[in-house]
């Protein structure tokens, strides 16, 4: 499918509404939003503007938690994670742009637990493109795509946000 025809604005508004609903159904837990650097953070910020609930936003950079350090080494520029709130006992809305193998989410959850014990984690992603290698699923998903092997979907942004599908061999 042609991803450039997708209205990201509609997808994000729809996700924001479902995050609001999710927060209401666990009203006894204080919600916070955490975007995964960089695409996840852009989506989180865009959703936050459209949500009814006021919610603090943090940024997670999972570079130090990746499982491929021994194969690819250090990422050249790692901006520090910034969670300006307690993680302990919070309802965390974890946001990423694309859900693929599930390894990023594994790394993100490991890092979150090093800040404290969340009461609940809700995973919200803009695109689920399949191809999972770990048992992860998104609670809230903007759009499911089925891509061919060797195809990758990438988000560019933050202004404007745009999706492209790239071949790489």
């Amino acid at each position: 499918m042609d991803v450039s025809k997708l209205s990201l604005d509609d997808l994000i508004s729809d996700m924001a509404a479902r995050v609001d609903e999710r927060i209401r159904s666990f009203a006894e837990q204080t919600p916070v939003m955490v975007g995964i650097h960089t695409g996840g953070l852009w989506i989180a910020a865009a959703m936050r503007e459209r949500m009814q609930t006021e919610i603090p936003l943090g940024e997670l950079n999972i570079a130090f938690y990746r499982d491929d350090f021994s194969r690819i080494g250090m990422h050249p520029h790692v901006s520090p994670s910034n969670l300006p709130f307690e993680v302990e006992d919070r309802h965390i809305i974890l946001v990423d742009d694309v859900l693929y193998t599930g390894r990023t989410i594994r790394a993100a959850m490991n890092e979150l637990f090093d800040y404290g014990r969340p009461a609940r984690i809700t995973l919200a992603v803009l695109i689920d493109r399949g191809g999972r290698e770990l048992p992860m699923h998104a609670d809230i998903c903007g759009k499911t795509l089925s891509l061919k092997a060797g195809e990758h979907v990438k988000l560019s942004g933050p202004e404007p946000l745009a999706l492209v599908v790239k071949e790489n061999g």
Partner: protein
Amino acid sequence: MTHANIQLDENGHLKHFLSIYGLDRGLLLSILDHARSFAGVGDRAVKKVPLLRGKTIVNLFFEPSTRTRTTFELAAKRLSADVLNINISTSATKKGESLFDTLQTLEAMHCDMFVVRHANSGAAHFIAGKVAPHISVINGGDGRHSHPTQAMLDMFTIQQHKPDFTRLKVAIVGDILHSRVARSEIHALATLGAEEIRVIGPKTLIPTDIEAMGPRVFHNLEQGLEDVDVVIMLRLQNERMCSALLPSEHEYFHLYGLTEKKLANARADAIVMHPGPINRGIEIDSSVADGRQSVILQQVSHGIAVRMAVMAMTMGSLADTPTLESRDEV
């Protein structure tokens, strides 16, 4: 083609960290960038990241040290590595084992990194040239030659207070002659483009050829401090002095000890640094060491972040060359 720098792998990544000399500005800035990312780890509930899990790091100390060894140890532990502290002066070499045999023995235990401190200049370079290819070596101070992690933690501390190196006047004060820290700082400051580097001390404690490295030499502390942004005090290294280079400690303090009055010659927002341990009342007055402009304790905390950065970078160099594309995909 010049002969390859032993500190870099074939892709230009940091493989060993032996001296500031030979590293370019981009690499030094990248060490500072990584240190900034690691600095926050110490403030979290779990002060660890899993980056070097399963790696074994050996602190190989041929010369006593508390501060450097403990911050290297903490840095390794915060990266989830296993750490072995070996104090060679009280160990196998006393039983006649050669340095080379000690290294081979440790290699046979599948160690991944040696942090080396030695009283002889060039010891870490020597070891880096002998170890198996998968092992990285970090210089934790060799003789009078160099102490690159101390220099980088000082650069990190300076950067936190004064982000633009090109506008800085920096004075290094005291026993330049015996100081590997001073030598490494001068290289680091010059590489990072500091506007002016000064060394201040008595003639007997300043090497005659120091000006060839770039700094201006002053023998009067008040004059040397005029208008500087950063004052780096050095420890008087009595243990390395083999002849009478100084009249007395009292006299030294009178001429070169940093007091509030003398510090008033520097810029009002100047910061005061010291690599520790401090000799209070000899090179620095307590009111300055504990004063508003002192960043001495920050240097200690930053030492952990900078050593984490260097350890992670050298261990990461062993990885296959990544393409930027493959880094983005998980």
